[in-house]
């Protein structure tokens, strides 16, 4: 649990983060969105005290984050940034081993951890461990950056636009990988982005920032149905709302009894994917299969249209 309480940061006259309070449940993904300059990065960096707040407090599992020196706090909190920030003169394995080495882990334990993480991120440890960062593709560098952030098994992971430098296809894959990793390690993640698509894809809860203030802190569905301010509404994009609503819910929650012709869609796919498939194939309904492949019903154009409708 992360409790951010009335946190404020001023640089001279300008208030960059203005009296922000958020409570973040353990093992969830919280995404902070907002336009550039709205204070997202500053808020994130106050959690691990790369920036010291002007006033207010932040508690991690009830403990004030000022109760130990900044560098020790930061060794317990994962930190991944846009452009990965890998050390160019150290190999991939050395990069990932940085924090465990700082913490004085035994060699064997470090090596095992590096190997585990590389495998988890689908990088062959024997092939990639000894390489230098510049010998990797952008997507691989980014994965190593996240692997390094997770090396000391932090309970909390802070990410500042971690996928900002990736092209769309690799970015979508990286987002899915992150969700899988988050489930695997049960990490609490705070992720900063200015990409709403990314926010809705990843978030359990979204905090929208505008001029240093959090103007809405809610689940994606709540935010779509009841945007708190015109700013939030414009950020979501009026034309995008129905699709976003479908995108954040799985097909499994839209299954109707009955039979439909054609190739089945997985119940784990999003309702937006089902809608796209229906529109593209010109049909009214699709069969739905559970993860084992057994057909469990259908999903219909009519049913999805009702789900995409906003509150009246």
């Amino acid at each position, binding site marked *: 649990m992360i409790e951010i309480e009335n946190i404020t940061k001023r640089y001279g006259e300008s208030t960059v983060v203005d009296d922000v309070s958020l409570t973040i449940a353990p093992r969830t993904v919280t995404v902070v969105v907002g336009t550039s300059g709205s204070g997202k990065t500053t808020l994130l960096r106050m959690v691990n005290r790369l920036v010291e707040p002007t006033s207010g407090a932040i508690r991690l599992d009830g403990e004030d984050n000022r109760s130990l020196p900044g560098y020790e706090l930061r060794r317990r909190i994962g930190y991944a940034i846009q452009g990965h920030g890998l050390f160019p003169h150290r190999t991939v394995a050395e990069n990932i081993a940085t924090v465990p080495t700082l913490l004085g882990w035994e060699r064997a334990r470090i090596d095992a951890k590096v190997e585990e993480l590389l495998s988890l991120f689908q990088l062959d440890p024997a092939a990639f461990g000894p390489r230098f960062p510049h010998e990797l593709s952008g997507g691989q560098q980014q994965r190593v950056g996240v692997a*390094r952030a997770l090396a000391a098994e932090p309970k909390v992971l802070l990410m500042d636009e971690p996928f900002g430098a990736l092209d769309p296809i690799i970015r979508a894959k990286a987002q899915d990988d992150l969700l899988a990793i988050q489930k695997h390690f049960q990490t609490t993640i705070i992720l900063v982005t200015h990409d709403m698509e990314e926010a809705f894809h990843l978030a359990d809860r979204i905090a929208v920032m505008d001029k240093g203030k959090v103007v809405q802190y809610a689940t994606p569905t709540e935010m779509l149905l009841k945007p708190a301010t015109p700013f939030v509404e414009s950020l979501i994009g009026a034309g995008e709302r129905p699709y976003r609503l479908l995108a954040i819910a799985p097909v499994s929650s839209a299954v109707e009894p009955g039979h439909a012709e054609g190739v089945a869609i997985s119940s784990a796919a999003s309702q937006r994917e089902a809608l796209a498939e229906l529109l593209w194939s010109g049909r009214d309904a699709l069969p739905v299969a559970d993860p084992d492949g057994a057909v469990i019903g259908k999903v219909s154009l009519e049913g999805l249209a009702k789900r995409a409708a906003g509150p009246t």
Partner: protein
Amino acid sequence: MRQLRFDKLGAIIAALALGGAFIAPFATFRANRIVAGEVKSVIDAVPAAWSVALLGIVVCAVIVALVRSPAYLRLAAAFVALAALALGIGVAATHLTPEANTYARVSPASGFWIMLFAFGLLAADALTRLRPAPFVRIVVLAVVLAFASAILLAGAWDGLSILKEYASRVDTFWAEGRRHVTLALGSLVAAIVVGIPLGVLCHRVTRLRDGLLGVLNAIQTIPSIALFGILIAPLGWIAVNVPGAAAIGIRGIGVAPAFVALFLYSLLPVVANTVVGLAGVPRDANDAARGIGMTDWQRLVGIEFPLAFPVILTGIRIVLVQNIGLATIAALIGGGGFGVFVFQGVGQTAMDLVLLGAVPTVVLAFAAAIVLDAVIEMATPNTRQAEAA
């Protein structure tokens, strides 16, 4: 048939080398070390067989230089021609000196120096084109130095006037040489020990940077002789007024002001390159280092310093080469070094003595530059791949 194409630099080298071989004199003969000499062409300076061989080699090398030939062939031609020159000037000395005459002096004349320059240029150009690995460059340097040492030890140059000057000063030559190297290296080490921490401080404290770099820049613009002069007064004062200062060798003239002056000149390149190197460390890497919990010291030692190291080394290279040259001037204020021979030679109008001081200085500076350049390249990991990526 393949068309012969000409090489532009080769044309210049050819013109120089041919002029040096056929128009300019090869060696100077003087009855004693200070009278004016008479100049001798290649044909007059060495026995007939030697002149045919020497001129033949020069013409062949000129042809190789002139046409567009492979770089390794150009390098080989340059080295063969340089070796022939080196041996030839020794032969000229023996040939021109009358039997059992210890006063007569033979020294290289303009033609020799012009050819040396021309073929040196050819070798440098070929090496640049071949882009040898750093280690190979050091090996080439070692081979060249070994060749020169072999000629010296075999006595093939003993007839040359510069070695006659050496023969009458064997002890002082090596003592001044040691002093020269100590002065150049000692001031460098002092500049590194003081300069790198100063550079780190300047990097961290922005306000300090501009002021300090400004002062160091100003020092660099003071002419060296003036700086030696400026230091005489304060150091003389310290010697008289600070107990123990005189005992450890601090005086207004001598090694102390020379050392201090070289140290002051060395500071700017070391400090400035440390600052530039640290500023060039990627922001992301620094931010990540802080973000994952490195202390400032760990970040400095583990991230910033290794990444800035090649740039800092470049500063050290500048200082070393500069100091080897500047240390010559230390002799003016009694600091010793190879400059002693240079200034004695100037005083006595004995050019050979000037050369006895100048040649080792140039060789030292040249060797230091090659070795440090190679080390810098080795310390910069994976540059080529990084550029390609």
